[in-house]
């Protein structure tokens, strides 16, 4: 550490702020004071994080600092090194945490006098701090320590509402899956360690002798599975839609918007930094990521489209978006493998930009869902409706998030999806027909994802906020406290700023990843083309599009006002009811009925089962019915077809293994004895 270096002082301040946020609330018995005492330092810490990360990212420098209390053994110590890549992810963490911390002050009042706010504040700050330190780590030891700290803190947050059976189940699935993932990550690091003989990331980055190809392949595959598990990549995603919705909504926002990004960070670190592809031999890495990414995107969104629980639907949508991010990363790796540096920059920019954007709008949407939960105490979309009138601010902010995540101009989701599409379209430059055709299939999946995402969020917003309330709770909903609105507004502001001024994001990504900035020079995104002898440049300028939309709006308003020769009146009257009399909430479309056509079209995936039971007045006349009851359910194919059999086999196997656990002390000692004898025998036969 260089004393007096402003950056490292800032780094320590960040750590101190979050530690303060974790510890200070423990002194307060009063819930209200405890929540302020934990989330205010959290917000301050995130502001510091943003300052630190932004200054490193923009300047394109790096900050190195071993902690002063490092242990004697050189490998087992905390070592931090913040380069552009770390700084970028740190920035994502800071931005989202700022919004969520402000939001949490209000949101935690949901739990006042019911649960320990102190525990919530403690775990929350610990969770954020460990995420920051994960991306700052510079050796395997500190990476894994904070990775585990992050997993454990989030595990306890997932089971925060521990009375519910579902929470515990979700937490267990989460902790098991995440540890499986960590095992793979550890394997990946160890594979590199055996090559370099050192645990520091520095040695991975520049090994003494280049790693053999097969080692690099092993490193990549293990990292993809390990980090893919944390990221929620299909088919390792099953924990995500269980765990994310079970946590308190502010934590769900952090988990979905930020925590899964640490996995993207790890994957990017391994594939771009440690084992950067340089020859066409590693193109299959990228292709594997493209396939896994597009499959995740499609499957995630298909489940999001039919999910009734608003938070679960958002969690599935996180799987979708992480799929898009990994698709972009994969394309970047494919392009790098063939030496197409410029295109790789476009794809990487798309991927990282989408990471940032997803952090903004997914945190916004989860906070919005939390507000709905706060106001109505239900997250079942079937029982919501009509909230736009009761909670206008929440509705407006949620709508901004919905537009952004659906990839519509002029918000940020569109800009990053535009770049992703350009990267897909540019795949014609890959000199391999098989890859070209495969990527075009991935493009279909991507476009279908975009189409269904639009439908998903129309449905989510419509079923939650529009038409009539479908339950008493929704009818009596009230607008949420100001701090929650403020927190959501921060995230909504990010969606707008990163949309209308892409350079705010892309310029920073370019400098922090050391990319050529020509792709994103001053808010105009450009991609050059050269096909069939035609040279052209595709470009798009978000600010100009926004200005044009404004101008068009003004022109239309002017025209409409001018053309109306007299003032027109607006009459409020009931909705057209075909003359049958009062419409009521039982006649309108619900969330399930909205998704029914999609469910039918994709029935091969959902395996929907519908049972209709009819109660007739008399058996003789089948047409007169007293009542009818329709039940429909869909299944998660992955849980049913992949995990359930796997778990069953494993349980069966271990049941058999368990027989050696007799409960007799003698038997255990016999095993010890046998083991000892075998060991000695081994020493005997092996010279």
């Amino acid at each position, binding site marked *: 550490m260089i004393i007096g270096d402003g950056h490292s002082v800032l780094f320590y301040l960040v750590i101190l702020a979050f530690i303060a946020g974790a510890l200070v609330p423990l002194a307060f018995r009063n819930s209200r004071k405890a929540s302020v005492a934990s989330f205010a330092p959290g917000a301050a810490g995130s502001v510091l994080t943003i300052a630190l990360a932004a200054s490193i990212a923009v300047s394109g420098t790096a900050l190195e600092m071993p902690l002063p209390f490092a242990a004697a053994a050189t490998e087992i110590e905390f070592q931090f090194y913040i380069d552009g890549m770390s700084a970028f992810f740190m920035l994502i963490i800071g931005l989202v945490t700022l919004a969520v911390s402000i939001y949490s002050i209000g949101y935690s009042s949901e739990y006042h006098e019911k649960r320990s706010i102190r525990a919530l504040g403690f775990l929350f700050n610990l969770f954020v701090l460990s995420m920051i330190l994960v991306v700052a780590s510079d050796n395997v030891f500190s990476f894994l320590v904070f990775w585990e700290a992050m997993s454990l803190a989030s595990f306890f947050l997932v089971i925060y509402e521990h009375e519910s059976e579902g929470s515990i189940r979700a937490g267990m699935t989460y902790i098991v899956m995440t540890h499986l993932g960590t095992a793979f990550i550890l394997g990946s690091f160890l594979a590199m360690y055996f090559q370099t003989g050192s645990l520091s990331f520095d040695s991975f980055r520049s090994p003494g002798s280049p790693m053999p190809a097969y080692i690099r392949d092993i490193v990549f595959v293990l990292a993809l599975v390990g980090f893919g598990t944390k990221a929620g990549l299909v088919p390792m995603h099953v924990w995500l839609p269980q765990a994310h919705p079970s946590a308190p909504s502010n934590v769900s926002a952090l988990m979905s918007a930020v925590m899964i990004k640490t996995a993207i960070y790890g994957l990017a670190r391994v594939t771009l930094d440690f084992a950067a592809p340089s020859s066409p031999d590693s193109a299959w890495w990228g292709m594997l990521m493209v396939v896994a990414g597009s499959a995740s995107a499609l499957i995630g969104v298909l489940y999001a489209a039919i999910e009734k629980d608003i938070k679960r639907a958002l969690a599935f949508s996180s799987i979708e978006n992480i799929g898009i991010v990994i698709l972009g990363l994969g394309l970047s790796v494919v392009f790098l493998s063939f030496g197409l540096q410029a295109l790789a920059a476009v794809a990487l920019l798309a991927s990282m930009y989408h990471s940032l954007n997803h952090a903004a709008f997914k945190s916004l949407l989860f906070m919005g869902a939390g507000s709905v939960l706060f106001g109505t105490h239900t997250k079942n979309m079937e029982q919501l409706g009509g909230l736009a009138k009761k909670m206008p601010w929440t509705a407006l902010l949620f709508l901004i998030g919905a537009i952004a995540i659906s990839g519509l101009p002029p918000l940020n989701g569109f800009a990053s999806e535009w770049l992703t599409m350009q990267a897909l379209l540019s795949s014609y430059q890959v000199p391999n027909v098989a890859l070209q055709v495969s990527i075009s299939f991935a493009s279909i999946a991507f476009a279908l994802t975009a189409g269904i995402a639009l439908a998903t969020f129309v449905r989510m917003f419509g079923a939650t906020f529009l038409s009539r309330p479908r339950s008493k709770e929704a009818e009596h909903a009230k607008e949420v406290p100001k701090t929650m609105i403020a927190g959501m507004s921060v995230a909504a502001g990010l969606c707008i700023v990163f949309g209308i001024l892409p350079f705010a994001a892309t310029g920073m990504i370019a400098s922090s990843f050391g990319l050529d900035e020509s792709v994103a020079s001053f808010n105009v995104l450009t991609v050059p083309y050269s096909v069939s002898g035609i040279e052209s440049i595709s470009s798009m300028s978000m600010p100009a599009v926004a200005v044009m939309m404004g101008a068009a709006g003004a022109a239309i308003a002017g025209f409409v006002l001018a053309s109306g020769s007299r003032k027109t009146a607006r009459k409020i009257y009931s909705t057209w009811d075909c003359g049958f009399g009062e419409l009521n909430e039982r006649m309108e479309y619900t969330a399930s009925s909205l998704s029914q056509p999609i469910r039918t079209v994709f029935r091969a995936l959902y395996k929907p089962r519908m049972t209709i039971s009819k109660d007739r007045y008399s058996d003789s006349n089948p047409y007169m019915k007293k009542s009818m009851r329709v039940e429909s359910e869909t299944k998660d194919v992955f849980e049913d077809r992949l995990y359930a059999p796997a778990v069953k086999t494993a349980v069966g196997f271990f049941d058999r293994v368990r027989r050696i656990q007799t409960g007799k002390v*003698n*038997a255990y000692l016999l095993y010890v004895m046998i083991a000892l004898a075998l060991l000695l025998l081994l020493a005997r036969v092996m*010279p």
Partner: protein
Amino acid sequence: MTGLEILPADILTISSAGLLIATFGVVVRRGFADWLSAYRYQTIVLAGVTAVIAYYTGVWEIYVAAALTLVIKAVVIPRVLVRVTRKIKDEFKIEANPYVGLRLSVLISALLVALSYALTQQMLSSSSLDVVAMTCLPVSVSLFFIGLFVIVSRRMALNQVVGLLIIENGLFLFTTALTHGVSLVIEIGIFADILVGVVISAILLFRISQTFDTLDIGSLEKLRDD
């Protein structure tokens, strides 16, 4: 072959053989008081072996260790054990129905000694060990295996302590023979350790006998989670 044949070679081998015989003596005893006295004899032999080692190596600390062995293991531990188990019913102190019959146990112990010699051949031939280690290594490993076997084969928890003590003696011999006496402080620490260990296990056993009204460790099976 198992050390029972008396060779005119040297006193070390003979004393080691004596140790093994004394160990068998512990194995065949059925009752608590019986094996305790057998253990006392075994320990005296062990102290003798240790003294021989001390004589061979000329390290004065090993004399101290031998003396300590004599005092603590042959006198203090048996006394303590008798004292803390006074309240345990006599019926729990007798191994009425072991998993492996006592005569068979002796046979198996003999086999284990053979096995130990066979298994340690490699180490004996490969490394540059001195004569003390060469002689005592197989013996200590034998004690180790026999101790484990005693624990495995006994049903009464109290009588399993004997296995533990045999293992401990084996370990002691092992360290002394190979390292020619670790630091005396450590040695004393180990003695204190075994003393406390024996006391604690005896107290635990007493609690078990109070709770379950038996010391048959078969009943511990109920603790298994199904």
